């Protein structure tokens, strides 16, 4: 091997072959959640609360049941009793018990012979509500006198004296803030807010469920993680977990929002009540927006100290996060990641998880990180401006690297923040001259990534081709990555590998495709499974040759004697060994079951240029650059795709997207016309640079890349708008009216 090649050389990894499921997906043949039917199938519909907060006094379904074609009505009484913790939270969220906790909370459901009859029938259900005072704002929900969502929901961590809506509390940090701030030449304090944003997957939740009186069930659904679905449904309905088989459909986007359940337990309950007939349940878009998880909103106070030359001396942040009517706002991640990009000696975080009358928040791409980044990266930028320093230089000066102690405690292994900053600095986009009303913003972001429970199997077929089964649904091309890694490990063509997503009965448990883990963890599992196969294949060759298995090496799809001492034999191909499999000892397969822990975090830096129309306040994104560390890009096109998609979602969150609640506590924008996600004409091309600082914990150096990309855009856009207008905005989203008002206020001041 050449002296300069510290990195392994690859034959397949890093190439850009067509994805294996491409044909299915461009011809309309791929089957998503709502695309399947069963003989004798019923259709479900869910009745939802029109109140933000109300006692449910009585539910009378007699008129609905009298309608021809109606086969079952379920309420909370049809679910299991005695649940606790997150199992109870999920059950309560899928079907309200004593109280409706938010506008859109499910209170009853119907199964009927057609979707139209089911929809007619839910209108015939009479519900007696006693409306209660409600609260849909995080600061208001913590204030004295705010209506209590659920008494006793707080856990051990909450100090005495806080409102019962504060259900979890975090505090972490190190050093001495006073000492740190005393060393600063400039200390700044700011209040920031971000609004709840929805994951906005284009495919609404959908499932086809069947559950018999014998407690055996089958479920087909669109999900990021079918083992999670199985456990959650089994708990909600009181089933034995193994009696339920869950098969994932193709999935039309998830971004974290499909790591939990909303309708699946309801469909199963309807099926059970309708005598085991299959029930199809599909959400409408407004149901998705009203009743599935957006991410939390945040209200934050950030303080930072800096020396004249840009060294951060101390930082503190207080984060109040609204996770809807249940505990679980991602305040843990927010506080851990808030200042994690930087080497700061004196640092302190306080976090509040706050309940309110909004839907139960769900994970959304790097949950908690974008809000944290909005505070940190905005204040750094404002300080850089005040001190007359370059925003990338200031980040370089403070950036973490291998061996530096993270703000959350441990020392960093090899990470690529500095590399992304340097690549951004030398990119053409950073030197484009700007015109009037234009501004440039930069920001960095980080996501830790994830390993988690992982099972996979790799089986050799009779002709020497390879069947790979993983448990992580393919949302963005991961079948291609798996096939590339298997091809690389075996040294066989990419086309000779077929990747399947196994159902819950065909593998051990798996965590979902979340936490940027699919390519890392399932990929690692595939590589290890392939290695086990290779060992067995080599052994078969050794036995055929009558030599020691250790004297066989595997190269480019062939078993070969390791050297002249091992003996003179013609290399034996995988096809040849596989063809003789049955007569040489039987099936050859490999598998992997573990929770890999060697995931490496991924840092990214974004540079954006905007133009702000001073007449209307409208922001146009002129150019956008994403630089991110992928460790090793398995299929670069899909890595770029993750970067671009994350950036686009972040741009939407920064500029347009928000949950708007009226005085009545009802969601005012539950359709895509009013909950406005970026469209093609809102965006420019999104330039990408893949930085590769290999993850030392992965055989091919892979880092998860899915989530980091949504973290920098919120502050990057705000920083660019500040540069363009001279006005600092600390509240998202930066809609034209808000920006215009800010510009006018600054003029008048």
């Amino acid at each position: 091997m050449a002296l300069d090649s510290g990195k392994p050389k690859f034959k397949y990894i890093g190439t850009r072959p067509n994805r294996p499921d491409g044909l299915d997906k461009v011809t309309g043949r791929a089957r998503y959640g709502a695309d399947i039917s069963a003989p004798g199938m019923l259709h479900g519909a869910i009745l939802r609360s029109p109140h933000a907060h109300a006692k449910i006094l009585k539910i009378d379904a007699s008129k609905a049941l009298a309608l021809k074609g109606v086969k079952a009505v379920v309420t909370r009484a049809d679910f299991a009793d005695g649940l606790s913790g997150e199992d109870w939270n999920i059950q309560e969220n899928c079907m309200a018990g004593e109280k409706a906790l938010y506008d859109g909370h499910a209170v009853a459901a119907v199964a009927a012979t057609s979707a139209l009859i089911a929809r007619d029938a839910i209108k015939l259900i009479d519900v007696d509500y006693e409306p209660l005072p409600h609260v849909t704002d995080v600061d208001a929900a913590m204030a004295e006198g705010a209506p209590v969502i659920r008494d006793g929901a707080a856990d051990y961590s909450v100090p005495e004296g806080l409102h019962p809506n504060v259900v979890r509390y975090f505090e972490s940090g190190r050093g001495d803030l006073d000492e740190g701030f005393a060393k600063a030449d400039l200390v700044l304090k700011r209040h920031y807010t971000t609004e709840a944003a929805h994951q906005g997957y284009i495919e609404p939740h959908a499932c086809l469920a069947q559950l018999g009186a014998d407690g055996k069930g089958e479920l087909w659904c669109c999900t990021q993680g079918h083992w999670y679905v199985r456990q959650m449904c089994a708990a909600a309905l009181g089933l034995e977990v193994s009696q339920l088989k869950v098969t994932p459909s193709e999935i039309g986007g998830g971004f974290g929002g499909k790591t939990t359940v909303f309708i699946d337990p309801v469909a199963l309950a309807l099926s059970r009540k309708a005598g085991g007939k299959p029930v199809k349940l599909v959400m409408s878009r407004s149901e998705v927006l009203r009743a599935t998880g957006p991410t939390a909103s945040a209200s934050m106070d950030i303080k930072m100290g800096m020396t004249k030359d840009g060294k951060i001396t101390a930082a503190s942040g207080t984060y109040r996060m609204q996770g809807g009517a249940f505990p679980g706002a991602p305040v843990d991640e927010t506080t851990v990641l808030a200042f994690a990009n930087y080497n700061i000696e004196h640092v302190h975080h306080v976090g509040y998880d706050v309940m309110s009358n909004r839907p139960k928040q769900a994970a959304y791409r790097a949950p908690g990180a974008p809000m944290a980044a909005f505070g940190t990266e905005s204040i750094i930028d404002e300080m850089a401006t005040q001190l007359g320093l370059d925003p990338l230089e200031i980040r370089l000066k403070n950036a973490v690297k291998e061996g530096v102690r993270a703000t959350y405690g441990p020392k960093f292994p090899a990470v690529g923040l500095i590399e992304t900053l340097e690549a951004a600095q030398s990119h053409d986009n950073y030197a484009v001259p700007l015109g009037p009303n234009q501004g440039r913003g930069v920001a960095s972001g980080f996501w830790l990534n994830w390993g988690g429970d992982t099972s996979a199997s790799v089986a050799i077929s009779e002709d020497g081709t390879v069947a790979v089964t993983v448990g992580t649904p393919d949302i963005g091309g991961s079948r291609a990555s798996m096939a590339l890694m298997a091809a690389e490990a075996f040294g066989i063509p990419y086309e000779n590998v077929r990747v399947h997503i196994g159902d819950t009965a065909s593998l051990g448990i798996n965590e979902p495709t979340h936490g940027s883990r699919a390519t890392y963890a399932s990929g690692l599992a595939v590589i290890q499974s392939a290695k086990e196969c290779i060992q067995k294949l080599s052994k078969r060759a050794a036995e055929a040759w009558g030599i020691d298995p250790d004297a066989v090496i595997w190269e480019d799809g062939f078993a070969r004697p390791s050297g002249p001492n091992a003996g003179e034999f013609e290399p034996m191909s995988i096809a040849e060994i596989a063809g003789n499999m049955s007569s040489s000892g039987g099936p050859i397969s490999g598998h992997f079951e573990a929770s890999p822990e060697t995931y490496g975090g991924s840092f990214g830096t974004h540079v954006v240029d905007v133009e702000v129309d001073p007449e209307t306040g409208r922001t146009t994104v002129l150019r956008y650059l994403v630089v991110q560390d992928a460790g090793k890009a398995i299929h670069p096109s899909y890595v770029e795709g993750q970067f671009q998609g994350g950036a686009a979602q972040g741009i939407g969150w920064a500029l347009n997207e928000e949950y708007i609640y009226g005085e009545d506590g009802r969601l005012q924008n539950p359709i895509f016309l009013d909950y406005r996600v970026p469209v093609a004409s809102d965006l420019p091309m999104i330039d990408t640079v893949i930085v590769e600082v290999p993850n030392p914990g992965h055989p091919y150096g892979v880092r998860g890349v899915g989530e980091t990309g949504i973290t920098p855009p919120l502050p990057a856009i705000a920083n660019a708008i500040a540069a363009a207008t001279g006005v600092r905005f600390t509240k998202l989203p930066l809609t034209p009216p808000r920006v215009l008002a800010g510009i006018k206020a600054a003029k008048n001041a």
Partner: protein
Amino acid sequence: MPEIHLWSGLRHLAGGEEIVAVEGNTIGQMLDALVAKHPRLEPAIKAGVSVAVDGQIKPNNRASKVSEESEIFLLQKLRGG
């Protein structure tokens, strides 16, 4: 004895200590010993924590080995999206 670093929100549950030395060869044994020493930490540990051993964050692996020299930090329970 390996030492566990607590995040500051936990310290008041551990008599104000920031670093607690406990016996144990695995994360599980250490966490059990930590709770034995400071029973008020039990709900926090039960609610779930992530443990960083020498910079590597181990979300929920009680069987994972630790040694005298390991640098161990408790972190909030982390999840993915």
